[in-house]
C-alpha cells in the first residue's frame, strides 16, 4: 500500500484511522514487550515491532493521501495486562496482535477492494504473529467471539 492519492470515502477513512490507532498502540506495546524478552524472543519482538511501525507509517500515508489527517498517537497507553515478566510480555504481544487483527477486519468489510485486500493480508499477518506468541490458533481471528449468535451471521441466499 502506498500513499498515492486516491478517492477514499468517509467510512473507509474511519476504518483506516481505527487500524492506524491499533498499530500505534501495538508499537507502544511492543516497546514494553521487548524490554522483558531476551534471545530469540527479543529478536522476534523487534522484528514484529518493525512490522507494526511500517504498517503504521503506510496507513498514515494512505490517510494523508486521501486528504484526511492521520489520528495522532497517544503519549502513553494503558496496557491490557500488567507486564513484569517474559511470560507476561509474550501474553501482551498476543493480545496486541489480536487487537490489530480486529481493526483490520474493519478494512476487509469495505467495498473498496484495494483496502479489503490490504486488510485481509494484514489480518493474516497479525494472526500468524499471534499464533507464534500464544502457541495457539483461533477459528476466527479478528472476529468477535460472539460469532454465530443471532444477528452476527451474514446471509447469502441461493436463488429459489
Amino acid at each position, binding site marked *: 500500500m502506498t500513499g498515492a492519492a486516491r478517492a477514499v470515502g468517509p467510512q473507509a477513512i474511519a476504518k483506516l484511522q481505527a487500524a492506524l490507532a491499533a498499530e500505534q498502540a501495538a508499537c507502544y506495546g511492543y516497546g514494553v514487550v521487548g524490554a522483558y524478552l531476551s534471545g530469540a524472543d527479543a529478536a522476534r519482538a523487534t522484528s514484529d515491532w518493525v512490522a507494526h511501525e511500517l504498517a503504521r507509517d503506510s496507513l498514515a500515508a494512505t490517510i494523508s493521501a486521501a486528504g484526511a489527517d492521520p489520528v495522532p498517537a497517544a503519549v502513553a497507553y494503558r496496557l491490557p495486562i500488567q507486564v513484569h515478566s517474559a511470560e507476561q510480555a509474550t501474553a501482551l504481544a498476543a493480545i496486541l496482535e489480536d487487537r490489530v*487483527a480486529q481493526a483490520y*477486519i474493519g478494512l*476487509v*468489510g*469495505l*467495498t473498496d*477492494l484495494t483496502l*479489503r*485486500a490490504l*486488510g*485481509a*493480508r494484514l*489480518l*493474516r499477518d*497479525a*494472526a*500468524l504473529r*499471534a*499464533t*507464534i506468541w500464544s502457541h495457539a*490458533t*483461533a*477459528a*476466527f*481471528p*479478528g*472476529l468477535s467471539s460472539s*460469532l*454465530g449468535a*443471532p*444477528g*452476527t*451471521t*451474514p*446471509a*447469502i*441466499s*441461493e*436463488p*429459489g
Partner: protein
Amino acid sequence: MAVGPTRRAVLAASAAAVPLLVSACRGVQVLGTPPPVPRDVRLLHSAITAERLMVSRYRAAVAQAGSAGHQTVTALTGILAEHEQHLAQLSATLVVPAGTASRLPAAAATSALLPAGLAAGLLALESAEQDASNTLAGQLLGVPPALAQLMASISASEATHVTVLRSLGRVP
C-alpha cells in the same frame, strides 16, 4: 409479477450482517427455469465444499495419528475443531429458500484423503491449508462485505494452521 426481495436488497442486507429469510422466488420456480447461481453464492458453495473436505481430511489424520505422540494428536484435534467451526459458520451463512433443494455440490468422495504415514500426511495437510487460505483470500474480493470478513478470518486461521503443522513436522 409478484416477486420477493430483489438481488440488490438481498446483498445490501447481507452486507449489514442481517440474516435473511428468503422465500420469494416461487414465481421463478413455477416457470421451471432456475435462475443462474450468482457469483457470491458460487463462491460460498466453493468455500463450504472446501471446508467439508478439510474436515474429512483432519478426521482421517486424527485416526491415523492414534499412535503418534500426544502433542500431534492434540494439535490435529484442535485444528479439526476449528475447521468444524468454519464449516458451521459458512453453512449458516447460506440461506436455502423454503421448498427448494440446495444447489450445494454433494460431498466429495472421502477415500484417499491423505497419503499413508504421519509425515506425509502432515505435509499434505500443510499444503491443503496453504491452498485453502490462498483461495479464500482471492475469493473474498468477490463477495459482500460481511461474507468477505468471514472468509478473511477463515483464511487467516488456515494460514496459522500451516505454522502449527510445520512445527509438528519437526517434532522427532
